[in-house]
Structure formats: structure tokens, C-alpha cells
């Protein structure tokens, strides 16, 4: 279960980092191209620390790369939100903000984990995620309250992605186990922060908060959207085509 829990956190970071890296060289403004890449680098860095730890916990000699490159889709434990396509810049910003608000509160709680490694990763990552949340909040406000066109694009992105937010707070068996053992976090506490933050920022952005309808779930159990298959096909290509080599 500890492996499962660590992978859940790591996979979110890797898949979102990978998604963000798709902007590198294609951003709307040079400075934002650099900023988005910074966030991607932070997230992939977090994923690496967590995979290294997961490999150690498992104790079967696997490496960070084995975990990232040699698992199949159903073995990935990331939430569905982070695998959603980059869309336009507004989609990416909304996806980022909805996740950052969760990620920030999640790491804040995880700092108190009885698991010293996870607590240490959380402390280090919290510094990074504090910046991510500031960046994405500012852009949600700027684009929400910018022009009529930007407002509409942001509202559409928000409406489309909202159905993937419920899963962030729905405890999996691993979440439940981790909470009971003092390793994980109480997702209800995280949810409270998230709701307040999201509602505060959306208000400032003049965006309408969608109603909580049906929420899509399954990522934490390995039941993903069709998008993950393509992410992995691309990401794992060299490792699959030339098995067992050093790069």
C-alpha cells in the first residue's frame, strides 16, 4: 500500500509535468514559455524523488526509470485531471490552477507525515508549489478578467475540466490506508482549503463556478481516459523499442 500511495503522488507529478512540457517552444509569450517549463521541471523533479523512494520501498531492484517507462497504463495511479490535453493556453492554466490548489494543500498536510521521506519531499515541494499556485492563480484572474474572448475561453475550460476535480478528494484504498497509518493526509482538510481557494480566485477572475455534477473518477484505480495511452506511447517509445539499454 505504501508503494501504491507513493506512486499515486509521483504519477500525478510526472504526467502533469509531461503535459506542461508540451508547451516548451510553443508558448504565447516568451516569459510564460519559460515559466511553464519551470513548473514542468519542478514537477518532474518531484516525480523523480518519489519514484526513487517508491523503488526503495518496493525493494525489488526497480529504478525510477523502470517505474516511469515500463509500467502500462492500468498501472498508473494519477488522477484524470492531469492527463487531460493541453488545449489552448487557457485550458492549461485552468487545469494547472485546479491541480495546484489541491497540490498545495496536499503537500502542506503531507509535511506532517510519519513517513520521513514523504514529509521531506513534501516540504521541499511545497516551496515550489507555492509558486505554481501563485502563477496559475494570477493567470486565471488575468485571463478571466481580461477580454471578452479570454473570459469565454476560460469559462469553457473551467466547465470542461470541472468534472475531473471530484476525484482529487475521493479517497482510494491507498489514501485510506495512508491516512489510518499517519502517513497520508486527510483529503477532507485538503478539500476545504481547495474549495475556499478556488471560489476566491474564480470570483476575482469574474468566472462562474460550475455546479458540482457527475464527477469522473478511476485514475487512482488505473482506469484512465483515452489520453494516457498516447502520453505513454510517446514517453516510453525509446525504452520499449530498445529494451534494457543505457541512455
Amino acid at each position: 500500500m505504501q508503494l501504491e500511495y507513493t506512486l499515486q503522488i509521483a504519477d500525478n507529478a510526472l504526467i502533469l509535468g509531461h503535459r506542461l512540457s508540451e508547451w516548451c517552444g510553443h508558448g504565447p509569450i516568451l516569459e510564460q514559455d519559460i515559466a511553464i517549463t519551470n513548473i514542468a521541471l519542478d514537477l518532474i523533479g518531484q516525480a523523480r524523488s518519489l519514484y526513487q523512494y517508491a523503488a526503495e520501498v518496493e525493494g525489488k531492484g526497480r529504478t525510477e526509470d523502470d517505474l516511469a517507462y515500463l509500467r502500462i497504463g492500468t498501472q498508473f495511479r494519477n488522477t484524470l485531471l492531469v492527463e487531460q490535453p493541453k488545449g489552448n493556453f487557457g485550458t492549461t492554466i485552468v487545469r494547472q490552477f485546479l491541480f495546484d490548489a489541491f497540490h498545495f494543500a496536499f503537500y502542506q498536510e503531507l509535511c506532517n507525515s510519519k513517513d520521513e521521506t514523504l514529509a521531506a519531499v513534501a516540504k521541499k515541494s511545497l516551496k515550489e508549489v507555492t509558486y505554481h499556485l501563485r502563477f496559475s492563480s494570477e493567470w486565471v484572474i488575468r485571463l478571466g478578467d481580461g477580454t471578452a474572448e479570454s473570459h469565454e475561453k476560460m469559462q469553457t475550460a473551467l466547465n470542461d475540466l470541472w468534472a475531473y476535480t471530484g476525484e482529487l478528494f475521493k479517497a482510494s484504498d491507498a489514501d485510506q490506508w495512508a491516512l489510518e497509518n499517519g502517513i497520508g493526509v486527510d483529503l477532507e482538510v485538503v478539500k476545504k482549503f481547495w474549495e475556499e481557494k478556488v471560489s476566491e480566485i474564480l470570483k476575482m477572475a469574474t468566472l462562474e463556478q460550475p455546479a458540482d455534477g457527475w464527477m469522473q473518477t478511476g485514475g487512482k484505480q488505473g482506469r484512465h481516459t483515452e489520453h494516457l495511452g498516447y502520453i505513454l506511447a510517446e514517453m516510453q517509445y525509446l525504452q520499449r523499442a530498445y529494451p534494457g539499454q543505457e541512455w
Partner: protein
Amino acid sequence: MVPIKSLEEKFQAAVDAEIKIEPKDWMPDAYRKTLIRQISQHAHSEIVGMLPEGNWISRAPSLRRKVGLLAKVQDEAGHGLYLYSACETLGIDREELFEQLNTGKAKYSSIFNYPTTTWADIGAIGWLVDGAAIMNQVMLCRTSYGPYARAMVRICKEESFHQRQGFEILLTLSKGSEEQRAMLQDAVDRWWWPSLMMFGPSDKESTHSAQSMKWKIKRKSNDELRQQFVDATVEQAKILNVTLPDPELKWNEERGHYDFGPIDWEEFWNVVKGNGPCNKERLAARVKAHDEGAWVRDAAVAFAEKQAKRRAEANKVA
């Protein structure tokens, strides 16, 4: 009024005395134009150069390589930013420079019109393309225009790191499987000659060189830099155990340099004119990013204006 001739003499005297020219100093129009052309070409090359390498970010073969490549391509965005800023000190803004790039009026280094078809290309770009760029850039750290020289100092530090990173990718391949070694040799076969072309036409053919040397924008000729690159690279190729695709490559005891075969200038000019394998794709990618980003830039401006208005109103009430 001070006669132009005496201003020009004063300017040239400053250049000759190795005094850096700064944005507010008087400078000949042609000097300003040459610098705008050169610095913007250089900035555009950084930005377009993000594309061939960016092509492998999503497929980098390990997490360490993914982070390394992502950071490298990001550095290039940063270099573009320094250089656009240096260019702006000459009285032209970034939007206009982008316009020149996107309409094909401004050029960028032709090397980026070649495709990156395998992972080894990422190593080869670092080793050969960045290696060639460094020869030029080290020289430019002492260029006569202050803001350009200072931007180059920062860029050079990062570029030499990139070159080592590229070499290390290739070194790993060279110690790998037969398939990996074949991938390495194939990449070197494809990147060697275009890298030599990066230094530009031979001194005899180069149109801008003489004046640029007099103004100390350039301090070494295209052929001198090319030779310097060949001499350094041949030795490194031995460590990688690859064959450079030039049967005429041979040490010349008398000259103290490596001799190398003739460069196919027809290919060079063909790619410059737009017929390289990726000219259309590279420009299209830049235009797409720019056009699709327009609503973001507009919104940022609109929001800033709203904020300023709100602050002004709040102040009035207070």
C-alpha cells in the same frame, strides 16, 4: 552641429580603443542596422532552435535526460530573451522583431531547418551545433556593442554546459549496443557538414565581414572560426569512436591544423533560400505559437489597463 565625419571618427576611435559602445552613444546608422540584423538573427535562432530539440522532450529516454533536455531548451528561450532585450536597446521592439521573423523577412540559423529524427540527434546538436555556436559566441563576448557583449557572456556559460551535455549523451551511446552506436554514427553523418556551414560563407564570399571586423562586431573571420571548430572537434570524435564523414580530413603538419574537404555551398544556399527539409515547418510552428497566443497577450494588456484604471479610481476616492 557636430559634423558627421568627426562623430564617425570619434566612434571609430572608441572602437579602436576597446571602449564599449553603449545604447545612448552616437553610432553610425549602418552600425546600428548591422547590429539589429545580427542580434535579432541570433535571437531568432535561439527561439527557432527550441523546435528541433523540443521535438524530443516528450520522448526523452529517461527522467534524467528529460529534465536535462527540458532545462536546455528553456535556457534557449532565456537566451532569446536576453538577445531580444539587447536588440531593443537599439530602438526596435520585440513585436516588430517577431513580425520580421514570422513574415520571413528576418533570417535565423539554417542549421535548425534540419530534422531531429533520432535521439542521437539531440546529442549531436549539443556536441556539434552548440560546439560551433560557442566558437562564434566566445568571440562575441568581446564584441564592441556593450549590451550584446554582456548578453553573450551569460549565454556562453550556459552553452558550454549544453555542449558537454550533448557530448555526454553521445558518449553514453558510444558505449551502448550496436544499435545505439549506429544511431550515433548516423547522427554525426547528418550533422557534420551543416555544422561546418554554420560559420557562414568563406571569407572570400562573405558580404558583411570586412566592415564588421572594422567595427569589432566580429573579431575573427568565418574561415578562422571554422578551422578552430574542426581542430577541436576531430579530437573529440576520437573519444566517441565515430568517423567524421569527410575522407579528406587530415592533420596538416605544416599549417598546424586539420585540412578538410570542400563544403557543399549549393546545399547551404538552398537551405538559406527556404528549401531545407524543415524550413516550412519551423516557420509555421513559430507563426502558430504567435497567432494562437494573440488572445493571451491581448487579455494581459486589457487586464493591466483595467487594473491601472481601478487603482486610479481608488486613489481618487481616497
